[in-house]
């Protein structure tokens, strides 16, 4: 019974360790912005912690550069289970504008198992809150793959059935 209680408490208290893997600071600043009065993520029990040992969530901003890869792996290992990894910003989602640079490994998911993706450059604080709320099950996902097709005989587009994950 107590075990269930402890599990239930998990989404109500997400302690966040914020990681920059080579980002430009834009996302980092918006992540901090989410904690400030107008957005106040602490409403959802979210707070920033200083040691990965205390963290439940790893927020990854930025494209993963070669130099941070070992540190990032160690960091992931230092977070106790259960843990979430959220990639914030286009860079962390898919490498962003840097995806093919020589020193970039790619998005966060090339190194870590990422649970949630929040694209944007940088994502608005609301977008980050939306992603977090989605992780908490408060809101629905709003994106899906789009497949449009013009047909030679029928110029109006019809959506192709979307691929199911």
């Amino acid at each position: 019974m107590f075990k269930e209680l402890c599990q239930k408490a998990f989404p109500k208290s997400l302690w966040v360790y914020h990681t920059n893997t080579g980002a430009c600071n834009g996302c980092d600043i918006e992540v901090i912005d989410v904690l400030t009065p107008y957005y106040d993520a602490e409403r959802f029990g979210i707070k920033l912690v200083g040691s990965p040992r205390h963290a439940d969530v790893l927020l990854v901003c930025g494209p993963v550069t070669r130099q941070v890869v070992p540190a990032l792996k160690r960091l992931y290992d230092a977070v106790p289970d259960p843990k979430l990894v959220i990639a914030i910003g286009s860079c962390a989602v898919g490498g962003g504008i840097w995806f093919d640079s020589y020193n970039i490994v790619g998005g966060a998911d090339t190194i870590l198992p990422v649970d949630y993706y929040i694209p944007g450059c940088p994502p608005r604080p609301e977008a980050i809150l939306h992603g977090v709320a989605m992780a908490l099950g408060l809101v629905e996902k709003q994106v899906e793959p789009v497949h449009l097709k013009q047909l030679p005989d029928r110029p109006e587009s019809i959506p192709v059935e979307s691929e199911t994950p």
Partner: protein
Amino acid sequence: MSAQQLGESVKQRFGDKVISFSVPQPDQLYLTVTSDSIVPVAEYLYKDQGCRFIINSGTDRRQQRGKFLITHFFAQDKEKFYIAVHTEVDEDEPQIDSITPSVPAANWSERETRDMVGVVPTGHPDPRRLVLSDDWPEDLFPLRWDVEHGVKPPSVEGVAPERLAPPEGASVVPIGPYFPVLEEPAYFRVFVEGEEVVGADYRGFYSHRGVEKLGCSVLTYNQIPFIAERICGICGFVHSCSYCQAVERAAGIEVPPRAEYIRTIMLELERIESHTLWLGIAGHIIGFDTVLMQTWRMREPLMWLCERISGNRKTYGMNLVGGVRRDIKPEIYDDIRQVLTDIEREWQELYDAIPGDSTLMARLQGTGILPTEVARSLGAAGPTARGSGLAIDVRVDHPFAAYDRLEVTKCVYDGCDNLARTLVRLDETVDSIKIIRQALQDMPEGPIMAEIDEEIPAGCEGMSAVEAPRGEVFHWVLTGTENRPERWRVRAPTYANLQNVPPMLEGNALADVPICIGSYDPCFSCTERMEIVDVNSGQVRVYSQEEILNGDYRRQDD
């Protein structure tokens, strides 16, 4: 003496060692000297003429001329011009005399040039690798034209980086790469005895993303402003603005005055954003979260305002070569004024509260002392320099955009400590509000984008500096074919400021280290945009304070 006079004086002094000099615009002096005379010329400029070293750059011109082009950039602040000293070295013998022994500020950039294009600075006091990652191959120089931009060498396990050992009796406290108050990865090895810092060592370049390579190999002139903007997420506009100005200078494009005013307004808005942000972070660093919350609450309407003007809260995407993409619509003027008035009122209250707050003063006053002479020799920039009594401000010294038509005050304090740097930023914010008000009032009507009919010719060069919230941002563009620059060199202010950190940390309490580092408002992503990490050598490079300072500076009181 003016740029022309200086050029002549150099020519006279060094005779045929000076191959040529030109002054395309009164604020730009290009010198070409032989490779054996680079050190005396640099010494003459730095020591005799009082010029400030900015950065150097290496360009692979083997395709065009069979040589590497090394360029040292200096600024003559009193006479308001920039100097580029070109030197060519043979491709068979990629070596150049190091100027670091005479110009300490050149330390990092010379090593960076070695890492990136493989031109070795001979006689460099600390010839270790600077930028590339630990497992990057030693003989692969990313900025050479024949190296593909997307080359990804295999990873190497177990590369043991070479690090500076702590002094006897001290232990190492690693600050970073992941440290809560460093928003970005950077690795300071702080040597402590008890709580006192007795030395420091820095390994950075975790955020090196290879911007310059992308700019020179994949992107076109008008794609680069967007990537330049993403050099730094806080002061991105500064970079795109500086880049565009450099290209405009190189191509001789006249930017419409309205676009200049818009750039000015955005730069100043960005400065306010950045300084409020910094104040909040500084408060957070010393555990004063209320400061963080309240300053960021003040800042938020400004972010909304920027979103309204530019379509995004940050990385506005406004700049293109030749002007700006979006106009500031007259109906927003009043909103801007309103937001500024609100910020000014609250900022003034904050300003009044700080001197009475003894606990806050206790943390800021007398900590993180950076003496004026160190700041000068290591080329500090921006509020860091101005907090140490160096009156340099690009907006006044080398006016750009619309600043020559606006009233700008240099905010200089000579306290040299964290408090001085704080006060500089507080003052500048107030000043920025005044500048924006004035700019809004004076803003002329007209187009916002220059008409560009011809392609940009290859082989032209342009220098441009912009005063970022953290100091002087410097861009140099050498135009090329295929609608992209042949070389685009960026210097961010933190690049210079960061070299000042280890000497400043010494003697402070460990508890003050975060706020000391924070007081520079370091932006590692700016600094590390183009440094590359050498993956194959199996070695990490670090620099000690002595190495950085070339052994000629010690704290007086020890």
